[in-house]
């Protein structure tokens, strides 16, 4: 299926940013999820956490101004905001595992309708690496995923059961895709459609989704500004 007008990564990140409350403590996964910070809503002040022991960091420094002792979990240089704090790795993961983070936003290979997430390994080949993902999905109060709705070769990423190795079981509560916003009703093991691109029919969306999309009440329009 060739879908017109899919959201790009910037637009998916923008949509996820709309749901971040003022004062929320937020951990953004390496790469794509990091883009969410740039779309923080005016007047809201989320506080960003990074696994390697910083709360309250801000934008990347200008090129040439990097201090390589001041990086995020993606090993990119960062800057501090007033009110920042440093701490060791045990304290950093106490924040995560202890349920102190409000939101963790991660990428995904697959999300299942029971909330299972696979995002760290495709198969048995190559070098495996897990980082902090398994701690984040078990610790944050709200675990959200950003992802293209389907893989590059058109396979569904929202599935009945993950075929890739799991990162965590029953952990994802919301998925922001290039086509829709979908909640995971973990208790009833089902996807609930929250918003979809307005021009997309339910049938078209269902046809690229690997598990049944339920509807509760209405479905909103996923409306996002032009961004690139």
């Amino acid at each position, binding site marked *: 299926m060739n879908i017109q007008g899919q959201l790009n990564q910037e637009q998916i990140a923008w949509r996820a940013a709309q749901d971040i409350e003022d*004062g929320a*403590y937020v951990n953004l996964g390496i790469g794509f999820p990091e883009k969410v910070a740039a779309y923080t809503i005016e007047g809201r*002040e989320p*506080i960003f*956490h990074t696994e390697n022991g*910083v*709360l*309250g960091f801000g934008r990347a420094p200008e090129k040439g101004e990097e201090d390589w002792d001041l990086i995020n979990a993606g090993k990119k240089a960062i800057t*501090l*905001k*007033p*009110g*920042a*704090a*440093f*701490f060791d790795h*045990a*304290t950093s*993961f*106490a*924040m*995560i*595992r*202890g*349920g*102190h*983070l409000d939101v963790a936003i991660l990428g995904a290979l697959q999300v299942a309708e029971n909330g299972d997430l696979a995002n760290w390994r495709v198969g048995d080949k190559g070098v495996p690496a897990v980082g902090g993902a398994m701690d984040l999905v*078990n*610790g944050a109060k709200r675990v959200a995923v950003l992802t293209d709705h389907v893989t590059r070769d058109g396979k569904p990423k929202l599935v009945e059961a993950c075929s890739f190795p799991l990162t965590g079981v029953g952990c994802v509560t919301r998925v922001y895709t290039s086509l829709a916003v979908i909640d995971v009703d973990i208790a009833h093991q089902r996807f609930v459609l929250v918003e979809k691109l307005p021009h997309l029919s339910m049938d078209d969306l269902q046809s690229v989704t690997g598990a049944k999309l339920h509807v509760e009440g209405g479905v909103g329009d996923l409306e996002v500004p032009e961004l690139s």
Partner: protein
Amino acid sequence: MNKGFATTAEAVADILDGATVMIGGFGGSGAPIELIHALIDAGPKNLTVINNNAGNGHVGLAAMIEQGMVARLICSFPKSKDPKAFTDRYLAGEIELELVPQGTLAERIRAGGAGIPAFYTPTAYGTELGENKPTAEFDGKPYVQERWLKADFALVKAELGDPYGNLTYRLAARNFNPLMATAAATTIAQVSRLVPAGGIDPEAVVTPGIFVNRLVEVPNPQQEEVLNQAEARYP
């Protein structure tokens, strides 16, 4: 972001009957006297209190106990120079005591804050404080399994605080305060000085603000030991 409250009374107003409350300090060092006294004014009953001790004299935790607010106490050392408040009620069967070795108490609180539901320690193995707890052997040595401790509220005393809730502590007044700050659903800190954001060096922060929900500035806080030397009573 501003976690500041105007008064200690407002900061503790929603601590209701039956709540579990961690109270920082080791004896009088680091004891949040003004928050405790505000809680006495509010007067909730049937509280479970977690503190290293059981109060001294007739102020602070001892006064809470005298007011009949504490149904259950989890502590390591319920003795002090003047332990009458606790001792009388304990011997009368009016207050339940869970005695926990001090290091196990600290680690159980830390575990509560860190999302570790249980851990093993050699402490208390083979003693009556280890009885009726699961045990296990690791590398040929026996250990006792201990569970995390969490609370509805923590009352802590800090030195500096900023609007984000970042805290520093004065001298040995640190003790249980940073641990308890992590292990309660709502952590309330009294700070001797509230500074603007950026007023605490990020490298000097002891308790990062994510663990703190409410701050009240209490300049020149009272010291339990000094109050007791003056034979003070509260209320």
